[in-house]
């Protein structure tokens, strides 16, 4: 699998590490109810299809990337820097 880092270009997946769902960026407010925190920390959708994920270009520029990947065939539908927001 290959990912196109917005800063570095097309790279082999070995340069990246995978964190998980992009919902990890949407951290609840400090005083949010426990249910919201429980969901944030523990619960993930498991779609067969496009999934927004966080990848770290750990052996490259160290950028965190927001990647939309189709879980059925690993097709990468979009990549942007995570810090650029939605």
């Amino acid at each position, binding site marked *: 699998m*290959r990912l196109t880092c917005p800063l570095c270009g097309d790279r082999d997946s070995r340069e990246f590490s995978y964190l998980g769902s992009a919902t990890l960026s949407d951290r609840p407010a400090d005083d949010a109810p426990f249910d919201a925190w429980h969901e944030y920390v523990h619960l993930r959708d498991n779609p067969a299809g496009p999934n927004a994920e966080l990848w770290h270009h750990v052996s490259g520029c160290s950028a965190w990337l927001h990647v939309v990947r189709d879980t059925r065939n690993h097709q990468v539908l979009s990549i942007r820097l995570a810090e650029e927001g939605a």
Partner: protein
Amino acid sequence: MRLETGGLIDRAAPLGFRFDGREYSGFQGDTLASALLAGGVRLMGRSFKYHRPRGVLSAGSDEPNALMEVGTGARRRPNTRATVQELYEGLEARSQNRWPSLAWDAGQVSDLLAPFLGAGFYYKTFMWPAAFWERVYEPLIRRAAGLGRLSGKRDPDACDKAFAHCDLLVIGAGPAGLMAALMAAEAGARVILADEDCRPGGRLLAEREQVDGAPGHAWAAELWDALAQMPNVTPMPRTTVTGAYDGGTFGALERVAEHMARPPEAAPRLTFWRIAARRAILAAGALERPVAFPHNDRPGVMLAGAARAYANRWAVAPGRRVAVFTNNDDGWRTARDLSAQGIEVAALIDSRAGVTPPEGPWQLMTGTHVTDTRGRLGLRAVQTRDGGGRHRWLEVDTLAVSGGWNPALHLTCHMNGRPRWNPAIHAFVPASDAVPGLDVAGAALGQFSTRGAMKSGQYRARKALEALGFEPPSIPVPNAEDTPPRLSPLWQVPRTRGRAWLDFQNDVTVKDVALAHAENFRSVEHMKRYTTLGMATDQGKSANVGALGVMADLAGREIAQIGTTTFRPPYTPIDIAALGAGADGRGFAPHRLPPSHAYGLERGAPTVEAGLWHRAAYYPREGETHWRESCDREARMVRQAVGVCDVTSLGKIDVQGTDAAAFLDRVYANTMSTLKPGRVRYGLMLRDDGFVMDDGTCARLGPEHFVVTTTTAAAGQVMAHLEFCAQCLWPQLDVALVSVTEAWAQCAIAGPKSRDLVDGLLDAPLGAFPFMACGEVSVRGVGARLFRISFSGEHAYELAVPARYGDALFRRLVDRAETLGGGPYGMEALNVLRIEKGLLTHAELHGRTTADDLGLGRMVKPGSIGHRMRERAGLSGRWREQLVGLEAVEPGARLNGGARLVAAGAAQVRQMDQGYVTSVCWSPQLDRYIALGFLRDGRNRTGEVLDIVDHMRSGAAQAQVVPLPFFDPEGGRLRA
């Protein structure tokens, strides 16, 4: 038997080799199989299960039978296909899976038992007692059934792995692949042209048909050479593309030096390539399929295309008297070519009635089937049955069989693509777009004529070039034969008795498939697993489609409705040595060495792994015979004088920005924004689920400049986490992070005399430098950083210099320490010192402990990561296992890390478990074993005596719960 003329062999270059100890000779250009056939050897192996005598079936990588051990000693490679092994001078080959000899194999008794050994035999027979599975049944079965033996020795040759990039990867250098590569090369694209053979041409190498008036192989060689001259083309002969992976990545195995006795100096034997291609064209050709009829597995029965490949390419007569049995026009060529080479063709047997095969010096038999064969170690006769049902025996020593051709579409299945049945050509063809960016051309697509394949290669290349933004050139298609063969499907000869083989390598017969069907294993995937059809090193290349045909007949359905099993990588077997190239021994993991490593070597210091770092464990002195002696001495030395320890491996992260302080307040459980410049604070990091991630120190060098440290083991994890926080959680904060672990060499100087040591070393007097101070200093003109922090409980410093001065600094510190009665200390003493002080490492911060478990609950403040979820009911309180100190009750008793804790006198069973021991040392200060551990409600149990239970090691002991730290609880030495 070698023919007088012809063949792509160099008759001026004879090569001697040995097979099962006998001398033979062949020529440059031979494969092991062609040279053996030339030497009159037909019996080349024994089958996997029944030990049936077997000869060569094919002339390529699809070979199921002729598997051999090639090479000697540590270079012996099992299961080498004789059909792809190029001959070299001195080659040593041995047949396998036979005892005592290939011609007289004791294992063939299993063939007599065959009526009892059908599909599912093992499942049904070796059921009980269960205790026999691993000890009796498996070793027995493994010895009886099997393939070659590994040498068991270390591979003396190196393998390599490499990466390549291209615009277009062309897989296969036959007519379609060569035309595709030519188009792309002329268009200016970067092209990789890979072929598993040592010569280009694919099927052209084995045929007599001409291309543009020249022999096909000559046309291919000329074009290949021209392509190789172009700077944008990389030809890769002897390279099998083995797998298609996501994002246009392909795996490929290059056999760099398997065509010679040993690799040339500094060259690898194999190279495993990862090829990143923007587009790819699969032009892998097609594989011929056999027909099932009774005793179709005797040596001398081979594929028709293979028989004429041996005659045309290698000038080898596969036999003296040959019959051809075919269900398609392509088989006719075998009769024509063998006869043209002067080999006697006794009969051309076509299963089809109403076709008119070419006339020749052979008996024409249409509407006729082969129904049986004779010959124990090699074919002697075949029985035919004509349309009127009349049987007759025909004396031949070779039968060339063709059941048609299957497109080699394997790579299109590697990403879940399912082939489609094409009833027009009676074969599976690739699903379109089965692998993104991969087009299929030529015979792999079902274009079976030479010119059709060339046109197909051109057309697919044009499409690929357009997609890549290249202008496709206009190139005429060469003149070549353009008649696709006609075919009537024939999977098994009907109305026969006797075992008819489908899968030669795994010994699966028509009867086995019928049995699977009768026992209701009717899905193809179930049938495959029940009969093991298609499971061995050839992955059913010649067997699968025939078995599907038989299943379809049994079920009374079409093959299209039966479906097919899928093909997975690799296309052909890959040595583990190639996949793991460079990853054995020192290559298994990176070695990170601290700046003091050279000094440690000089002092004979053994190293201990800490993450990827190799740190000095202790520095033995003359006369010390046990590590404990050195460790105890070093620990006492620090407490009494001064010690120097390399702590470079601890993670160091530089944090800068106007929001750096606010950022650290969020990522640390405790507050950092109140820290004054020039001061250091202990910091605890939690994860958002409320558990502890790591601890370390945070030094404020300026209002917007911090350096934080992490534990050695968690340095990478903490860096990634902080980047995540900065980029994903709070991108609006102005903060920048850089890992500076390798940039700074850092040494701890600990002990009552540490101030004397440091003060004399710096360019300026140290002055007042209280506990937890930090600042910039200068050592012989080199800018350095000084931190007054301690991991030993002693008055201590850590001094950091740019990494290139690390070795010099460490030696200077040790020299000075020795004049003060001190010296270097290693990881063992460092561990003793920190346990005596109750300080934590990842033995305690193991991912399941909370701040409250560690007695640090009050540090955690609102607004920091982890504070919210740590409030959950289960994560604090008296029923949690809490950090405690443990002291051996008997002065001589030993404690073990990992041991469990139970109340004194309680039953030593899991249900009574109260906690566990994490860190243990013998304390020179307390003159006994001490430990850190976690004990249920531990903070309320000070003074209690517990039983230490260790079912893994001997050494039952008792320990008393004591307050932490064990040593200098007021911390007077720290601040002194």
